[in-house]
């Protein structure tokens, strides 16, 4: 068979963000692949050093259009621990609510992208249609569908009225029924199975070797979730299950993500029912004493790590992030050889890459 190189990206119908993958194929089989990133590098870490602590909240929110709230949560947590600030309980609950709504819409987005990659346009349309329900809720809560600006250093900016609580609970119930439909579909649809079951398998050893995190790690049997293992915000007082699977293939990832969505709905309902009264934020000082701090957050794609160092001024001396996509990209390069070219789409879409996060 003749060998050729198929370029996927930087612009390609499969990719939602610029990323370049060069596939060496022999016939219909992939024999090698190279992943190149850096097309959306904006120098955000450097920009963070030129803005004040408060301004940076708005900046890190714009790193990514999907996990924007996870970024601000991690950043605020790091800065708050630098300042020795404790946020009010109500703020912690609202942070959880936004985090979980974001997880739901991110997972649905992923399901849609995967469905489109395997040519299942109907599921793509349904997933993105239902995702709108969540985006609407977030817009009503914060004023923004994607950039919510819900977090500020010291607490949150958005409040929830008792009427809103009732309304949200009602709509979450309706949404839960939709998710039951999706779960049944993933369980039973043969044509979905054919394109995802046993495809792009990642072993538990590989998860450890590449430090993979989040749903892909959990789908390979790695029982890790920061919400339970290192609770932040109000997670320690809420009940939820950590979902794992042991297939490690695209289908297991779909399973994990869908069941996590159902857990997230459960978390949202708990937050709304048990929402404590109190302030929304504690006042944060402008200047921060010299020191350094780290914060970890379970973003929709896995562990998001923030490091902030202060030199005593009103601007951070260094902000460093480590996003969950980075290990996924490394692992991807080694998953590609041996695949059918037709499965590459499912594997890349199944990896749930967030290039904007990885490039910053």
């Amino acid at each position, binding site marked *: 068979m003749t060998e050729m190189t*198929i370029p996927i990206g930087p612009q390609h119908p499969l990719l939602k963000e610029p990323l370049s993958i060069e596939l060496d194929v022999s016939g219909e089989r992939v024999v090698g692949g190279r992943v190149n990133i850096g097309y959306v590098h904006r120098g955000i870490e450097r920009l963070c050093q030129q803005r004040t602590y408060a301004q940076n909240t708005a900046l890190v929110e714009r790193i990514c259009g999907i996990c924007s709230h996870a970024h601000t949560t991690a950043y605020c947590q790091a800065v708050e621990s630098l300042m020795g600030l404790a946020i009010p309980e109500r703020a912690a609950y609202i942070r959880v609510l936004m985090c979980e709504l974001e997880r739901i819409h991110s997972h649905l987005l992923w399901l849609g992208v995967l469905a489109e*990659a395997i*040519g*299942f346009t109907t599921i793509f349309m349904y997933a993105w249609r239902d995702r709108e329900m969540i985006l609407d809720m977030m817009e009503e809560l914060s004023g923004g569908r994607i950039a919510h600006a819900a977090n500020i250093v010291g607490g949150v900016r958005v409040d929830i009225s008792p009427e809103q609580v009732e309304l949200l609970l009602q709509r979450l119930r309706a949404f839960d029924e939709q998710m039951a439909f999706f779960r049944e579909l993933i369980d039973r649809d043969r044509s*979905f199975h054919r*394109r995802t079951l046993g495809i792009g398998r990642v072993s538990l050893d590989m998860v450890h070797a590449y430090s993979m995190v989040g749903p892909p790690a959990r789908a390979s049997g790695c029982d890790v979730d920061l919400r339970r293992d290192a609770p932040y915000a109000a997670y320690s007082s809420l009940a939820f299950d950590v979902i794992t699977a042991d297939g490690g293939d695209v289908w297991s990832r779909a399973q994990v993500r869908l069941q996590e969505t159902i857990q997230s709905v459960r978390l949202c309902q708990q937050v709304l029912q048990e929402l404590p009264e109190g302030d929304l934020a504690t006042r944060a000082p402008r200047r921060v004493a010299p020191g350094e701090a780290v914060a970890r957050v379970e973003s929709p794609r896995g562990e998001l790590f923030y490091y902030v160092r202060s030199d005593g001024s009103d601007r951070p001396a260094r902000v460093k992030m480590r996003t969950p996509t980075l290990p996924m990209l490394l692992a991807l390069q080694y998953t590609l050889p041996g695949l059918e*070219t*037709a499965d590459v789409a499912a594997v890349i879409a199944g990896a749930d890459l967030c290039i904007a996060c990885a490039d910053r």
Partner: protein
Amino acid sequence: MDIAIRLLQVLVFPGTLYLVAMALFLNWVDRKLVALWQGRVGPPPFQPLADLIKLLAKEDITTKGTPAVASALLPIAAMTCTMTASLFVPVGNDVIHSFQGDLIVALFLLSFPSLAYFLAGWITPSVYGVLGGNRALLQYFTYEVPMLLGMAIPAVYSRSWSIMTLVDAQHGYHWHLFVLPIGFVVALIGLIGKLERVPFDIPHAKSEIGAGPLTEYSGRKLALWRLTVMLQTLVGINLLVAVYLGGADRIWLQWGFLVYLAKVVVLMVGLAFIQVLYARLRIDQMAEIGWRLLVPLGLLQMVVTIWIGG
């Protein structure tokens, strides 16, 4: 006078003008229904025509390394073959030309566009085109045999290779569909493979190889390719209606046309429904379905047909 009527038949009804209008209409039905079932709004009725006109007006680029003559001739040849095939396929009670063996000629002419489609990708320098062409050819070998089998079974059953005679043989609602259901299913799935619709849209799998063989085509050539696919859909459905669903059931002139129209639309609705139900298959999965399932089923139906002797 006779020549004038003939010309009118070829150019207006049931020939070119009717076919193009009907093909555009079916394309709209397809797109609108799929959209509605997927929870979208869908295009207005004139969208397919507007798309076609827009494409015709757009700049026609021939990429470096593509033989210009071949890339211009292939879509024309594909469309010509499809239109020529339509001469023998009845529309309502009308058929332009009918003779013993026209079923074979029509099927042969209909298989040429698939080969042209493969060549169209093969001659471009784009890897997507080459890979898409490869897949188109592989797919051709998979669906063509079941489809030919499916179309041949009624001919064996009713002992005629003329489409019009086959329609007559089904007179009185003795549709071949009722006697030869397996043959119909095999032919229908073969047709879906030929039209490269979900779940067999492998040669132009967007998320894998862009637009496949048509990646490097634009403007008029792309418009011609699009129109060819729409015409193929119509002619394929017409053929199925004539061979399996009793054509116009020999009903009095205008009503006969309406009966035929209803059958065409019902088949299109069925095709659109299948479109929303499935994910795309891999080429090896398609080959498996074709050779392990459809061909044996078709052969079984053929053996039964010969045995019961029609």
